[in-house]
């Protein structure tokens, strides 16, 4: 087969077909392909974003956990301190109370001793009076001697 005018006609037809394809067939296909590409890109981007956001959230959660732990530790430390304070305070109170009670007891004891001493004194006076009465074997003017005896008692 040789080149002839028929081939030219066929080439014209082919050219028109190519034009038609370029105008009406190609664009929708390319559009679909680009849409698909864009969809994939968007999907990947949003996945990336999701991962990033998750990382951020995780970091935030870790931060919050750390803060909470810190706070808890602070509270525990404070509580410990307070407990120590209370213990110290009660120790102090106990000591004060103890010494107060000690002082009271001592005062009571002293009082008792004094009272006993007074009684003893009285009895000594009586004894002395009785003794003196027996020694003298005579009437003694009690009123005259009382002042002297009181003086004696005060010296005891």
């Amino acid at each position, binding site marked *: 087969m040789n080149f002839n005018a028929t*081939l030219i*006609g066929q080439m014209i*037809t*082919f050219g028109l077909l190519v034009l*038609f394809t370029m105008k009406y067939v190609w664009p929708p296909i390319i559009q679909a392909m680009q849409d698909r*590409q864009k969809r994939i890109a968007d999907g990947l981007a949003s996945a990336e974003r999701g991962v990033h956001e998750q990382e951020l959230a995780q970091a935030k959660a870790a931060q919050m956990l750390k803060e909470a732990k810190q706070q808890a530790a602070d509270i525990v430390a404070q509580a410990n301190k307070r407990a120590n304070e209370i213990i110290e305070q009660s120790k102090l109170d106990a000591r004060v109370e103890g010494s107060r009670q000690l002082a009271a007891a001592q005062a009571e004891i002293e009082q008792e001793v004094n009272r006993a001493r007074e009684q003893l004194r009285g009895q000594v006076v009586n004894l002395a009076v009785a003794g003196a009465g027996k020694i003298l074997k005579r009437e003694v003017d009690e009123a005259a001697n009382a002042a002297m005896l009181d003086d004696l008692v005060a010296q005891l």
Partner: protein
Amino acid sequence: MSTPCFFSISLGALFLWLFMKAAKSATSGVPGPLQNFCEIMVDFVDTQVKDSFHGRNPVIAPLALTIFVWVFLWNAMDLVPVDLLPSIAGLFGIHYLRSVPSTDLNSTFGMSISVLLLVYYYSIKVKGPVHFAMEVLTHPFGKWLMPFNLLLRIVEDLAKPISLGLRLFGNLYAGELIFILIALLPWWIQFTLGWPWAVFHILVITLQAFIFMVLTIVYLSMAHEDH
């Protein structure tokens, strides 16, 4: 080597090279234009397979993809001006050239008979030889009409490759014939008929490739199922 055979193999190689190139540089990120195109094709074929094939067979989808793209490329040769390639070949001393493989019965029947062989292979593999023989002999009239069943089955299985091959061949041969007839008109008037026919053929070549693929899937699907 006959010329349809040469074009057929060339187009097959083109398909393989193109898709292999896309597959080798495939990325799980945003696909490039070639990968995007190949993914669309694979997606499309995969959807078709999933719609009509319910068994489990890793061969079906690649087979369907190969048939679709290859037949499409065969048919697409129809849009090249009918006298262009023969004229060029004429310069090199080849005086008989048929550039559209699907206008050659050998190509279309080669493919449809391959499909039939696959149908038999999977029928026997999936159902087992005994079950398959029983099905051939007792379906659809029961065991008392065995010869008729066998006869019916033979007709049925002959009809598959013949209808597959002849449909593709007939459509494309007729199309090519019309192009040749149009080429007999005076050159300045040819485009008035040639252009609409070519535009129409964009549809035909895609449709024929699609039909061939879908029927292949359906036949193989039938091979996997009990009647």
